[in-house]
């Protein structure tokens, strides 16, 4: 799916001094143009990664100089896995969130994309309006609105009242707080929807015509043409949304005023990491959490890619 762009073609012929000079010139130019990125890779990514790996084996509170860190070996990891119930709680909150919100978001995206796919005049307008929540939804402002909407006096309860159902303060009830955050995530289905729409446009119409001729109804056409043809796009969205889903922070922070409540019900992994690192100033422990997080995300992505082999069909294999 993602490969390095092809090397520029060189004209055939023996290496002349002129070409050799051209090549070393390109070599130098390549590194000149790449230098800001290389610097960033070293200073902003690689060095911090190594530092955080080191810190994860230490006890460190930021306030004292770096020279005073205390090496504690595997203690942080031991504590995380065996001695910190809130850690496992945060893991389960995050996994629950991703397991529910990601599939539902993708289903909503696919469903609306299918409805939109058959062209009619206002399709561009619809597409844009459905996409709007994806642009706004990650902001603090929208999280504030969302939380108010599911409060006791919020719009959601008035809607329930309309149907004669007694409302309640959903966001302050530990049984439902996380669900309101899932809804917020699902509400932003526009971004994957746009990608689905583009994918649907690539499915050749002849396939459907041939299937109709053979007597296949809409359901069979969906399962035997649309789904397989769309599988690379489904896979792409799945990977992306899963990785995003595990990193939800802003809405949980806003709902719980940065504490993960009520009763830790919205303690997402990244929020827990933030609390340990920047509120409790337990930076060594938080670094260990960050590394476990990184490895977990890596493993999940790898598993997705593995399973993808069984159900993702690449039509144009070999020329991606």
């Amino acid at each position: 799916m993602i490969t390095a762009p092809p090397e520029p073609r060189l004209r055939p012929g023996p290496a002349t001094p002129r070409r050799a000079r051209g090549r070393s010139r390109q070599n130098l130019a390549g590194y000149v143009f790449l230098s800001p990125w290389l610097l960033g890779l070293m200073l902003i990514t690689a060095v911090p990664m190594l530092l955080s790996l080191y810190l994860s084996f230490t006890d460190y509170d930021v306030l004292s100089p770096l020279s005073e860190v205390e090496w504690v070996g595997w203690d942080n990891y031991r504590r995380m896995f065996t001695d910190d119930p809130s850690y496992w709680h945060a893991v389960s909150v995050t996994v629950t969130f991703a397991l529910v919100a990601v599939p539902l978001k993708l289903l909503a995206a696919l469903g609306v994309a299918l409805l939109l796919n058959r062209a009619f005049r206002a399709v561009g307008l619809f597409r844009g309006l459905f996409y709007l929540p994806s642009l706004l939804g990650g902001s603090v402002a929208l999280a504030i609105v969302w939380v108010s909407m599911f409060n006791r006096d919020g719009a959601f309860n008035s809607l329930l009242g309309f149907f004669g159902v007694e409302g309640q303060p959903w966001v302050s009830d530990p049984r439902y707080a996380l669900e309101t955050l899932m809804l917020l995530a699902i509400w932003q289905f526009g971004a994957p929807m746009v990608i689905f729409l583009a994918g649907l446009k690539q499915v050749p119409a002849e396939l459907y015509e041939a299937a109709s001729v053979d007597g296949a109804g809409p359901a069979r056409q969906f399962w035997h043409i649309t789904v397989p043809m769309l599988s690379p796009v489904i896979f792409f969205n799945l990977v992306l949304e899963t990785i995003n889903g595990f990193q939800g922070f802003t809405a949980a922070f806003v709902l719980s005023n940065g504490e993960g409540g009520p009763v830790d019900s919205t303690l997402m992994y990244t929020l827990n990491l933030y609390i340990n690192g920047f509120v409790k100033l337990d930076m060594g422990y938080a670094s260990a959490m960050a590394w476990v997080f990184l490895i977990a995300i890596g493993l999940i992505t790898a598993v997705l890619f593995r399973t993808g082999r069984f159900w993702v069909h690449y039509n144009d294999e070999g020329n991606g």
Partner: protein
Amino acid sequence: MRRLLRVLLLIGILAVVLYPLAWMVGTSFKSPEEIVNNIGLIPEKFTPGNFSAGWNNFQLSFGRFFLNSVLVSVATVLGNVVSCLLAAYALGRLRFRLRGMWFAIMIGTLLLPGHVLIIPQYILFKSLDWVGGDFPYLPLIVPQFLATEAFFVFLMVQFMRGIPRELDEAATIDGAGPYAIFRHVILPLSRPALVTTAIFSFIWTWNDFFRQLVFLSDLSDYTVPVALTLFIDSTSESAVGPMFAMSLLSLIPVFLFFVAFQRMLVEGINTSGLKG
């Protein structure tokens, strides 16, 4: 007939999807009593006073937070556009040793969650006295000038793949080196990718919360998202209207970008296929 049903269904879904936004607009014009009693969309009595109350809710005017956000966002746009373009040109068009390896590493960083690096970055920036320093936005801005937003590098590499190689070859025959080709061929032709990068990087930075929360410590340095969370601490009934008013104001720049560049944004996530 089926077509009509489909359009009606779509309109129904759209109404549900847009309801929260409409409700936000309506609520930001409601008086404190109405916020409790009238949960409908339209306020009975328009209360524009929420905006002035919200604007002056803290010791500092909200205008200050807006200015701070503009500063951070504009600087980020500038940094991303310049630095990612340079990196993309090297990775996408030039031939040099280890290029394949660097490209693979760039793709790797694409999937690297920002939360993993935030602690060591904080420690580094703090040891440089950048956190809460003379110019407190250095930790937010400097990384953007070093092409750390791999997504934009990737987007531009993808775009540059579409620029015909023959142009480079013709320029080479005319005696142009890599710098001249960059200046006279790639730069002018990459404008659409640059605009997409600029818009997305503005919107993402404007909405970003995590990094701004971590790196900004003084009220006078706060950006809009961080300032908005101050309202949550004080959710007395009377603060809800002003809180909604300021939330609404904060989304207007993003909304305007959406109106102006809708097509480009939608196409932008298509060509590169990314989040939103």
